[in-house]
């Protein structure tokens, strides 16, 4: 168990810098999810923490130690890989024991640890099988077992659920979370799936193009996204963005609709509002012309455009509701649920 400090961390391949000045302080026992679109550098960052990629500049500390120059095996970490990376010719037991054997633990201790981990993961009956005789979910457990037996200071997960089908993914997600809470090991988890990130992480580090867009709890990210990118990435369906102008203490949409806010200055802005925060109200100022209706059972999604414009607008209405295509539906938006962004820098403007 340990804290992790990432200080001014940079990664370059030749002249191209792929990670820019990453800062982050991870608490002991915290579950951190690094999330972002593919190619944002999240796996590279994880592999730098693991010691599988070199650090171009900056520093990684695990606990009290600077680990930049340490081999992966000297960093007291364990890692779970996307395609499990189980040794195909070894039994489940041998897979889990391999790292312990290299560390020259006694056979009795190895057996004890392997069996304990197998019990936690409920894979005891598979210990003598080969990986190819197991299902995807079982292999995933073995991969986690291999990490657990090492009793490391840090768990690293590299998109470990992306090869599983949707249902199993949800189940394993919960299991990983429970396991981590039970063991209390500091963990870093990489995924491109924002739902996975929201449900798993104590805090999320949103990476985009090699920059940290925001680092905070899921609720902070949802309630106060630091940028248009984070706002659009977190939450489903994605936030609506409308061009607008702040004038005389109000937000004026492009079709002339005025929403009063307490804003100090006047500027062009991008207005963000989540579909679930649009409240149907016959007198509401925001009118949506319906183009398509998605019935999801628990709620209903209305896709269309803001009246009088070609700006896409989506609203989420609780329960079943029937609407005709072409119909206008009115919504109100409480000022507290609005997000304003600078259209130039794409960063958040405080109201």
């Amino acid at each position: 168990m340990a804290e992790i400090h990432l200080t001014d961390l940079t990664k370059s391949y030749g002249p191209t810098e792929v990670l820019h000045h990453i800062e982050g302080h991870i608490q002991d026992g915290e579950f951190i999810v690094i999330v972002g679109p593919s190619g944002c550098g999240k796996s590279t960052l994880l592999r730098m923490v693991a010691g599988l990629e070199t650090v171009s500049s900056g520093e990684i500390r695990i606990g009290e130690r600077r680990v930049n120059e340490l081999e992966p095996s000297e960093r007291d970490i364990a890692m779970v890989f996307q395609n499990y990376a189980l040794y195909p010719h070894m039994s489940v037991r041998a897979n889990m024991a391999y790292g312990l054997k290299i560390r020259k633990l006694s056979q009795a201790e190895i057996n004890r640890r392997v069996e304990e981990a197998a019990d936690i993961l409920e894979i005891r009956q598979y210990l003598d099988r080969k990986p190819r005789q197991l299902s995807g979910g079982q292999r995933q457990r073995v991969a986690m077992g291999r990490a657990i037996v090492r009793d490391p200071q840090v768990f690293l997960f590299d998109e470990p659920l992306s090869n599983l089908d949707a249902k199993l993914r949800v189940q394993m997600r919960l299991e990983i979370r429970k396991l981590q809470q039970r063991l209390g090991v500091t963990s870093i988890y990489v995924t491109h799936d924002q739902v996975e990130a929201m449900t798993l992480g104590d805090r999320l580090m949103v990476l985009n193009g090699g920059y940290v867009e925001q680092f905070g709890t899921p609720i902070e990210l949802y309630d106060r996204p630091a940028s248009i990118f984070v706002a659009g990435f977190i939450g489903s369906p994605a936030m609506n963005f409308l061009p607008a102008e702040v004038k005389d203490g109000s937000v004026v949409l492009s079709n002339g609709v005025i929403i009063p806010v307490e804003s100090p200055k006047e500027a062009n802005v991008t207005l963000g509002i989540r579909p679930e925060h649009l409240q149907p109200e016959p007198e509401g100022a925001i009118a949506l012309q319906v183009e398509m209706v998605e019935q999801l059972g628990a709620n209903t999604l209305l896709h269309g455009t803001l009246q009088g414009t070609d700006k896409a607008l989506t609203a989420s209405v609780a329960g079943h509701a029937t609407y005709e295509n072409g119909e206008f539906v009115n919504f109100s938006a409480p000022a507290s649920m609005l997000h304003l962004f600078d259209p130039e820098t794409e960063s958040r403007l405080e109201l």
Partner: protein
Amino acid sequence: MTDFAPMSPAATQNRNSDVQKLALRWLLFAMLGLFALFYLMPLFVMVTTSLKSLEEIRTGSLIAFPRELTFEAWRTAWSGACTGIKCEGLQPYFWNSVLIAVPAVLLSTGLGAANGYVIAQWNFRGANLIFSLMLFGCFIPFQVVLLPMAMMLGKMGLAGTIPGLILTHVIYGLGFTTLFFRNFYVTIPADLVKAAKVDGAGFFRIFWSIFLPLSLPIIVVTVIWQFTQIWNDFLFGVSFSQAGTQPVTVALNNIVNSTTGVKEYNVDMAAAIIAALPTLLVYVVAGKYFIRGLTAGSVKG
């Protein structure tokens, strides 16, 4: 092919087309059979000739079975036939070939495995260039290195020796063995190496405890390929050996082309079969791997 597929009632097959199909089927088997005879005939002739007496060879037909079985020719071929001036049969040369092939196969396979492992999984700057150079090296006609190699062996004091031939076969076999292992190892996910590094294993340990145990199929393919190449080699054998160190192919050629005395065709044939037996045996026992080596060797990159 739908020839023997059960016919649906809706299909309006008429008798003519059935007859036609049957005739085609027979034609197919006839052709396949004829070709089989073409490929088998030389082996058949070799075996029957080797079991005949010289007298019967002169009077009988090429493809007739021996009237009287005699293993005299085999005995002569093994231990009495003359290669030039010496008349010890193929036996000593057969063992020469074994002494050359076994170490050369083991060394070139082992080095190829290590090279392939480095190139496939420990990519460093320039590794691909080295691999390309090796690949081109596979294709050179050996004539182009024959003269300098002869001089080099002389300088190393290995001219005309079995170690010299071993060295030659190892060096010029490396391109192919590296290619085989590299192509096999690139199919192993790179995460396996990463997982092993996290587990604390180093370069050699990962090779030894993870890659080698997974390599059995490609080891078999490579060993068979190398053994066939080296056993059947003639050019290096004839160029870099001397009287006592010739491999079996060179001795066979000497027996067949020695002009002294009566031409003993039955001995020639017995000697040819003896020289061919080891590779034939490998082919029969492990044909699947033999073919895999052949096709892998031809589909490069």
